[in-house]
């Protein structure tokens, strides 16, 4: 479980987080969506223990990420936006290194190589990997820890549509295994129907909760959208579209059927980005 309470973070005069609060519970995929600069990545970095908030608290499975940082970090796994690795080390060496850091068995490394289909690239140096391969290696590292809380910052940006669908399927399965999954993204349409909750973040606060089964296709140009267009889901009008959404979670449905449908929807939606 994740509990963020009244988080405040400023860099100089620029206030990035301004009293941000939310909870994400085990067994659910929670989306943190919002336009660029809304504070999504800063929030996830605070939760991962990379940044200390100036005010407020963040708890990972009941452990304060500032006061009990190392125990809290044992309960989480984090995938940054663009994962990078030591360029001279191979995929296998990198996976083994992270397994050793957490005191995990080598068999976990083998499992992750199979899960992310990286076995044939196991001896390839990270510096020679494509962006998509690096994302897959990042995914392998995320799942390697078998942590109860998974934090993903804009995942899948470099993945092809097939692997993006696969990523969502894997994360859905992790959610169903009881993991708390928190994903930040501004490409919300891709997660339509996959997530259990969707929180709209704006100007360092959680503005409100959105219907996770009916998300707009484009959020990027939301700040510039002309008010009152009334159209939903078209490019450039994401924010207006969000404004029209209900803020309840009544549509939450964990049936397997919904998941299959959601996966197909996302593959269909992907080229529209």
């Amino acid at each position, binding site marked *: 479980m994740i509990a963020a309470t009244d988080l405040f973070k400023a860099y100089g005069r620029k206030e990035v987080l301004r009293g941000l609060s939310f909870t994400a519970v085990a067994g659910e995929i929670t989306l943190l969506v919002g336009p660029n600069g809304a504070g999504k990545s800063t929030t996830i970095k605070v939760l991962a223990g*990379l940044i*200390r908030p100036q005010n407020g608290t963040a708890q990972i499975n009941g452990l304060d990420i500032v006061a009990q940082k190392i125990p809290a970090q044992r309960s989480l796994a984090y995938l940054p936006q663009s994962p990078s*690795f030591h360029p001279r080390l191979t995929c296998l060496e990198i996976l083994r290194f992270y397994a050793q*850091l957490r*005191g995990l068995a080598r068999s976990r490394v083998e499992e992750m190589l199979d899960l992310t289909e990286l076995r044939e690239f196991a001896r390839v140096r990270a510096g020679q990997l494509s962006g998509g391969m690096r994302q897959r290696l990042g995914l392998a590292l995320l799942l390697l820890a078998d942590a109860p809380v998974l934090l993903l910052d804009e995942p899948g940006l470099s993945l092809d549509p097939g692997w993006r669908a696969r990523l969502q399927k894997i994360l859905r399965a992790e959610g169903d295994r009881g993991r708390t999954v928190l994903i930040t993204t501004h490409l919300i349409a891709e997660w339509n129907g996959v997530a259990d909750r969707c929180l709209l973040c704006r100007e360092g606060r959680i503005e409100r909760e959105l219907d996770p089964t009916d998300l707009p296709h484009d959020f990027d140009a939301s700040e510039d959208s002309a008010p009152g267009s009334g159209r939903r889901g078209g490019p450039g009008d994401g924010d207006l579209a969000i404004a029209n959404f209900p803020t309840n979670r009544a549509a939450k449905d964990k049936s397997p059927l919904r998941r299959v449908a959601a996966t197909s929807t996302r593959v269909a939606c992907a080229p529209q980005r």
Partner: protein
Amino acid sequence: MTTLAVPSTLAPLRAVLLREIRGAVSSRYFQVFCAISVIGGVASVAFAGDSGLFILQLALYFVSLFALLLGVNSARAESEEWPLLFAQPVPRSAYLLGKFLALSLIFASALLLLFLPAFVASPATAPLLSLYFHTFELAAFFASVGLAAGYFARERIQGLILAVTVWLFLLVGFDLIALFGARWSTLQEFPDGWLALLMLNPLDAFRVHALFSMEQIPAELAGKTALAAWWIDHAGLWFGLLAPAWISLLLWNTARRLRQWED
């Protein structure tokens, strides 16, 4: 849900150590260092009259510079990976300590390439052993300077410029300042103050120890002040203590810097 494995205290340190050794062995700096060490080691026996003095020159300029470069290289090698690394349940200081220990081990091994021919050829191994040990300490000191510069700088190039500036300052700048200061009448009244400044520079401490132990230079300075006499008599001990003190200070400050990144 699977029970979470709690790593032992030393597991992360061991992981960083092994990773650093793997990374360093494939680094060009290290490969060039090994090649020059082999050539220098053979040359010290084949062409130089006094192999110890020849190695001393190599240690002063070449070992110190390469230790510095490997330190910066190591600190910046995975700078883009830091978000992923620092989200692991491992104190940030463990990465720094692991890197330092790995670099120390690497230099302890690679310096053998430089010293081995002299060890084989020279009948007087005690001064050479002492020089090996102190050259290793010097390399460890400059590796920690390189690590500090690499972590304090925002980019690799800044780290390299900072590190090389420190190296030049310790190599020549410090002595020039001391020489200039020696002309100042107030300082002339307190020669121990001037001497203490020199003693604090690890390169000077190394140079004085090595020169006096290898060459048996008549210590004219020794009779001038009590501190000078003590230094000449205990030059090896002094350098043996000074280098670890500087290394600890540098690593402690760098670890603080890593913690401050959270703010």
